[in-house]
């Protein structure tokens, strides 16, 4: 009997601690650091209206499910401990109870009510997030998913860029949200910046829309969330939320054609006499390929290859020499340039601000 008692206690103890640990860990980790820079990817640290609506709903759902968890857990643990078999009454069977209509009615109706509440709360947020009208001041961006990088087009502003999205911070009094049209050039992808909005997939032949109105400036991180092929893991996303002045300056810069620098004419010739120009565009030159990222203002970006490496001269050289060394499976081939051509083309790249 002592044995039995001990076992049930250990059972209860371990089970309980593990699960309590789980919930407290979830709470602690979820709250996490908030003002680090760049911003993290915590879904409970929202920095825009849709993310905030979702996060508030999430907390509500967590509280309700948390209460259910505690109550049912306690009932289960109680019955396991209270009704453990004892050696003294071995051989005698307990009272044979077959059911009870009242009790079963109760535990049918209460869950139904809870479900209705959770459904209404969800439907409200769905409507607020998905059916929000686009205000006149909104920025429009077309995001196109490629294996394994992002293309961003601002049709009204005449800007084409890649991998790092710039959007203005939105002042609630005079909102300037960004509305994205999501397209795909190849397989499915998913646009996910946890602190700015929930995910929306980019699916070929199925244009999607989403929006976000960041309330703080800074860099927000995310990455492709829908498995899209070999390098799904290194299809990272950076969103720079700029002050209105910074954003305007960035747009003006992007609208310029590429810098023409005579000192790197060799590099430019290498670029234009190799296949580079069939895959990449550099505005103001003959290079107008669309298979790879637009390089017109490459050096403005902090990272290359969709966040796979930081944008340093060494990384740039390594990338052009052998993209597989940084991002195995990437769709840019190793161009097998000789060392002098390589140096020249890297110098050319470095002038593209």
């Amino acid at each position, binding site marked *: 009997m002592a044995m039995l008692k001990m076992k049930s206690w250990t059972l209860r103890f371990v089970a309980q601690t593990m699960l309590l640990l789980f919930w407290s860990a979830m709470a602690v980790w979820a709250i996490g650091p908030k003002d680090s820079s760049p911003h993290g990817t915590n879904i409970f640290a929202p920095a825009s209206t849709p993310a905030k609506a979702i996060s508030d*709903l999430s907390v509500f759902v967590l509280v309700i499910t948390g209460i259910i968890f505690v109550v049912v*857990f306690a009932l289960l643990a109680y019955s396991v401990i209270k009704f453990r078999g004892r050696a003294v009454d071995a051989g005698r*069977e307990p009272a044979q109870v077959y059911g009870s209509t009242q009790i079963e009615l109760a535990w049918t109706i209460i869950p139904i009510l809870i479900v209705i509440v959770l459904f209404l709360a*969800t439907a409200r947020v769905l409507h607020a997030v998905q059916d929000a009208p686009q205000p006149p001041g909104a920025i429009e961006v077309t995001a196109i998913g490629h294996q394994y990088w992002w293309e961003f087009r601002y049709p009204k502003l005449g800007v084409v860029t890649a991998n790092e999205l710039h959007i203005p911070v939105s002042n609630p009094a005079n909102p300037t949200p960004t509305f994205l049209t999501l397209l795909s050039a190849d397989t499915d992808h998913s646009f996910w910046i946890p602190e700015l909005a929930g995910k929306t997939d980019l699916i070929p032949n199925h244009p999607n829309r989403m929006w976000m109105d960041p309330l703080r400036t800074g860099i927000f991180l995310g990455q492709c969330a829908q498995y899209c092929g*070999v390098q799904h893991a290194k299809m990272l996303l950076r969103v720079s939320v700029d002050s209105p002045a910074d954003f305007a300056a960035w747009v003006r810069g992007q609208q310029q054609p590429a810098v023409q620098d005579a000192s790197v004419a060799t590099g430019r010739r290498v670029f234009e006499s190799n296949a580079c120009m069939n895959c990449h565009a550099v505005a103001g030159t003959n290079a107008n390929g669309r298979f790879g990222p637009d390089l017109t203002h490459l050096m403005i970006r902090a990272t290359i290859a969709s966040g796979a490496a930081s944008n340093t001269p060494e990384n740039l050289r390594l990338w052009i020499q052998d993209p597989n060394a940084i991002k195995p499976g990437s769709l840019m081939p190793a161009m097998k340039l000789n060392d002098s051509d390589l140096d020249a083309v890297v110098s050319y790249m470095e002038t593209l601000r």
Partner: protein
Amino acid sequence: MSSNAITIPGVQIDEKPWVDTLHEWVTTVDHKRLGVLYILYALLFLVVAGVEALIIRIQLMFPHNHFVSPQVFNRLFTMHGTTMVFFMGMPILFGFANYLVPLMIGARDMAFPRLNAFSFWLSAMGGFLLYFSLVGANGLYGAGNAPDAGWWAYAPLTARAFSPGHSTDYWTLALLVSGFGSIGTAINIIATILCMRCPGMKLNRMPLLAWLNLVMAGMVLLAVSPLTAAQFMLLIDRYLGGHFFDTQAGGSAMLWMHFFWIFGHPEVYVLIIPCFAFMSEIIPVFSRKPIFGYPVMVAATVCIGFVSMSVWAHHMFSVGMNSYANSFFTITTMAVGVPTGIKIFNWLGTMWGGKIQFKVPMLFCIAFLFQFLTAGLTGIMLGSAAFDSQLTLSYFVVAHFHYTLVGGVVFGVFAALYYWYPKITGRILNETLGKLHFWLFLIGFHLTFDLMHIPGLLGMPRRIYTYEPGRGWDTVNLLISVGGFIQAIAVVIFAANLVVSYFKGKKAGNDPWDAWTLEWATSSPPPAYNFASIPLVASRRPLWDLKHPEDQ
């Protein structure tokens, strides 16, 4: 009732040369042997897919780890998922259904014994084809390739443009072939339960295990058929110039998603309902009480069966359906929580006022209850479409469905193995090893899958072969991997127990657990014909009647 109806003489087995034994097993149409074959075959794949999982976990232990290449990683998670669902989960549950249903309803075999053997060998062939891709795929370019489009194989990744070579074809064929096997087994289970019950075994006296397997089989028919159709369409796309899913020729990626999830969601219930069945048989016996609310349990299962047919698009909350569709699939998904909750409460009601015996099968059942409760609640979170737009495609989902499939299905299967092993082999599994297995597996499971929710909330997507340091994902991932290895050790102990107890285990006798259903009325292992004379039953618990004549 008359007691002589269910007394069985022991059977004498003669020594035979091993070739003869092998031949008998390969050509068998006996439901018990086929059941055992299914179970062994599934355990083999459990080990294979388990090793794949461990390699995945080694790769994810540290950020920027280089244990495997991205290509290999993508094959590993595709093969792990496909194998666990189709060649471990379904077969092992079909194995138990095959073994137990006829015995529990007092029949001598399944309704169509030869269809049964055919279905098993089709499923076996499916698993073989999947792994044959490692040798045969990639045609002219050399071998050594495995499917890598993920276990949902979303279009257009499976189009020839993105999946050249033949690995995707092996994946398609494997699912096609085993799909026919599953349909055959489902028809067989339905026919057996509806037509082969012994005298007195009215539908409302059937053990819950039979009821739940009836619902499961019905769902297999409805769910596997669209998947099989979709596989044909995919083959047509790839080889006959069709454009169902070929987006570059105007096909629809969404169409595949609908086909796949209209199979995929019911599939999770196909896997969990048989485990509900195990709970509904084992918990009463070790609580020494009948199941609480039998009719409600049946109704709740049938209800789950129906409602879960209309929730599939909750796997598609991020694909851009409008707010009305998202709301619809939110309410249907949450609605499934009601009958599922009823089941948990009824198991609770069964234990309430009982005299619980903490035998190893019961330990697994108790852990199942706690874990299934948690999985159900995270399921409610995922069912809320707006919340899900953050959670879906992240590690939170991975944690949730492993909570149901490991914390639920695998714990349920272990409970069933400990409980029915004595019937199948005539010997009881060693209790000490069993408890060691249970506790280690429990600790490993919680370490891995409790923690796995966290990186999801912190923005870690699933299916990435490596990740950036400094996002709060590092330590958690290391601990998750450690938990995986603890589970692996527990499974090794279990395997040792299976072997050791087979030769040295305590003799079981007919009825080691003092249970109430018909399978315990015959010898362990049962003779080929199951029952010397067909039993006659007068209640839901024929052996209780026998042991408690005063109750009549």
